[in-house]
Every structure is written in C-alpha cells, then in structure tokens.
C-alpha cells in the first residue's frame, strides 16, 4: 500500500531488494477476473435469514464448509452487536466498546511527540480539516500518548490513542494505562453526547468492567477508557 511504501526509495538494500522482488509478483488478469466473478457470484455475503437457511440445507465441500462456518459466526456476531434501536443508543457505552489501537496495526505513533497529531493529519489526509484536535492538556498531565488509529464514529472522523502513564502519574500512582478516544461530533451526536463531564463503569464485551470518563470541548467529544482485555477482530 502507498501508506507503507512511500519511503521505499530511501530504504537500505535488504529491504529494497526484497521489496523489488515481491513487487514483480502479481495476480494475472485472468486470476483477477476469476476472483471478481467469484465475489460477484457469492451468495450470502450479507446476513440474511433466507440465505442461511439455504446454506444449511446444501451439501458443501470441506473448504466451503469452513468458509461458511466463518460466515455464520461473523454474521451471528454482527447481529449480536447490533444495538436494539436508535432510541436506546448510549454514546458512553458505545464509546467504551470501540476498538483501541491495539486491535489493528496503528496508523501513527505519538510516542516522544505528543503534539504531532495535527502534523500527522496534514501528512495523511488530502482534506486538512479532516480531524483537528489537540490532545487535552489535563490528560497529558498524567499520560503520554503512543500508538493511535483513525476510525469513524457516527459518520464523523475519530481517533483512538493508547495512553501510558507518565512519570508524574507513576509518582502519584493514580493513573492506569488507558485509551483516549476523540470523536468529532456530528449534529446528531452533539445532541446525544453528554454535555457535562461523566464518569461511569461499563461492562466490556469480555464481561470485565471498564471505567470511562467522558467530556466534550467544542465540536469534539473525549473519552478516557481504562483498558481491559484486547478485542478479537478476525473472523
């Protein structure tokens, strides 16, 4: 991907040679066409009672069977995590369930440069206004940021950043590692996001309790989620 290979020209010989070798390897046009046909012809890609009913009654090869098992498992997960309705959507609980930067490879690392957030946005995005928010000073008083990842919340850009205790916090023994979530508030989410600072304990997917502190400043909502177990994301 371009994100990873922009600096290839400056890489040492080892990386460059391995990269150049693999760069020449690609799927043939015929293989790509077959993959496209396969994707377009695959039923039951979306969760659907009808399609699962059909699948259960069909004899399948062992390979397809394993794929379908994954499909069914993924779809069941999808159905289970669906909120019951718009009305019952709880932004605090929802923020608590968001994947932290440990779930996937991070998009950036702020270690050693707490103020680099806006520079990173400037480098990564064509739209320079995609996300502009400094890290809150009160958080930086006790934590130092490390890896982070962009995602979307309620249709607006958001970021999760792994926060580790800094020396001040260690001395006071008050803070635990946490995930800082910053979400750009849409018109809709401004209405449902708490106006005052709120601290709550919310049960995570693993059943363990997570402590979450939520507040807002201007058009951004903030949440500090005390970490629990990592979420598994791969079907």
């Amino acid at each position, binding site marked *: *991907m371009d*994100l*990873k*290979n922009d600096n*290839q020209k400056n*890489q*040492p*010989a*080892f*990386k460059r*040679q391995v*990269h150049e070798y*693999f760069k020449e*390897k*690609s*799927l043939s046009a015929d*293989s*790509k066409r077959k*993959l496209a046909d*396969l*994707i*377009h012809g*695959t039923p039951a*890609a*979306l*969760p*659907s009672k*009808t399609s699962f009913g059909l699948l259960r009654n069909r004899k399948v090869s062992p390979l397809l069977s*394993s*794929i*379908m098992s*994954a*499909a069914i498992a*993924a*779809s069941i997960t*999808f159905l289970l*995590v*669906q909120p019951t309705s718009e009305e019952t959507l709880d932004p605090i609980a*929802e923020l608590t369930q968001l994947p932290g930067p*440990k*779930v*996937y*490879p*991070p*998009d950036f*690392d702020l270690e050693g440069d707490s103020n680099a957030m806006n520079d990173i946005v400037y480098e*990564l*995005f*064509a*739209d320079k206004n*995609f996300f502009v928010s400094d890290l809150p000073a009160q958080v930086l008083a006790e934590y130092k940021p490390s*890896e982070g990842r*962009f*995602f*979307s919340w*309620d*249709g607006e850009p958001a970021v999760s950043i792994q926060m580790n205790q800094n020396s001040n916090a260690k001395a006071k023994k008050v803070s635990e590692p946490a995930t800082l979530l910053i979400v750009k508030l849409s018109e809709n989410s401004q209405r449902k996001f708490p106006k005052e600072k709120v601290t709550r304990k919310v049960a995570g997917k693993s059943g363990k309790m997570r402590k979450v502190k939520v507040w807002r400043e201007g058009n951004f909502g903030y949440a500090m989620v005390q970490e629990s177990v990592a979420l598994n*994301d*791969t*079907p």
Partner: protein
Amino acid sequence: MTKTAQQNWNSFFASQTEKSWDALYRFALSLTRNEPEAEDLVQQTLLKALTGLSTFFKTNYQIESPQAAIDLAHRIEPAILEHHLLNWMMKIAKNSFLDNINRSSRRLTHVPLDEWNESEAESVSQTSGSHAEQGRISSQSLAQMEDEFFNQALDDDWLRKFETLNAKQRSVLFLAAEDYSYKEISQLLDIPLGTVMSTLNRAISKLKKSAK
C-alpha cells in the same frame, strides 16, 4: 436482503479491496512460497473477508448497515480504508494459512505448523526482558546486525536462499521489507514483539551466513 442489495454489497467489497489484491497475493506468497497455493489462499481470504465485512465495519467504524458502510467509504480517505482492509485481510490470510496447515490432509502442507510456533517459549523469555543473557540477541545488537546486513547488497543467489527460510521468517521479512514496524508485524501475525525481532534476526542471520 434483496438480490440487488446483495450484489451491491459484493461490488462494494470488490471495489474497496481490488487495489489490495496484489499486495495480499504477495503476502500470501511469502507464506506459501508457491504461486498456485498463494492464489488459493487469496481466494479463501477474500471469501472470508466478504462474509465478515459487516463485522469489520461494525467493529471499526460503528457502521450498522451496508448502506451506511457504502456511504462512509465515499466520505473517508480511501487510502486509510484500503490500509485497514488490507491489514485485516492479511490477518485472515495468516489465520487461514495456519488452519490449512493444521488440516494435515489438505494440500497446503509444505510448512509444518511447528515452524510457526517454534519459538513461542523463546519469545516469552525475550519479551519478558529477563533472559537476554541466555544467548538471545538484544535489540541493540539486532540493530547492529541489521545495519551490517543493510550495508551488504544481497548476492545474486539471495532468492534461492530466501526460499529456504520458513513461513514465519519469510512473512516477517516480507512485512519488514514493506516497511511495517516490529509492532505492526507483531499485531498482523499475532506473535509477540520479541518473536518478531528474533525471527527477523534469525532470517537475516541465515541469509548472511548462506550469502557466502
């Protein structure tokens, strides 16, 4: 779900991932060492990813419906979404590769599963940082070795020697060459950071040793 909606969803998946198919294929090739098997692995991965796409958007973007996911793709920076999808698919590919190996009766058995798990005990000791004296190579000396290695051009026969590395070494080396960090490789392959470093170290050592 109507047939049209399903077709739209499948087309959406194809459009969002097709730029990454070659990258996914290269990663699969680093695992399998074999082009037909790599193609099979890509196919298997894409089908699994297609079926898990709803979960991907729900988990990462809090997207509740297919249409919302399609709408999001028009708003979000394409490179970021492609990057997330590729990383996710590489994890699926790696898991599928190991599943295939685990099914010993299957065709993809060039590499025993033990090769992947060979150094788990060692990696634990490395990540704990308490047994560096047991012959393990520190990150500092690893960096020195890497520097030395980087300064030596690979010999003409490097590719044949590269083929002698095991699947984990090849995939770690491949990702390192793609400029993934140790931490990123650790997350993509679900192996401890110390294992990434020791695996890369071992791969480099083998190539250096065999280069003469």
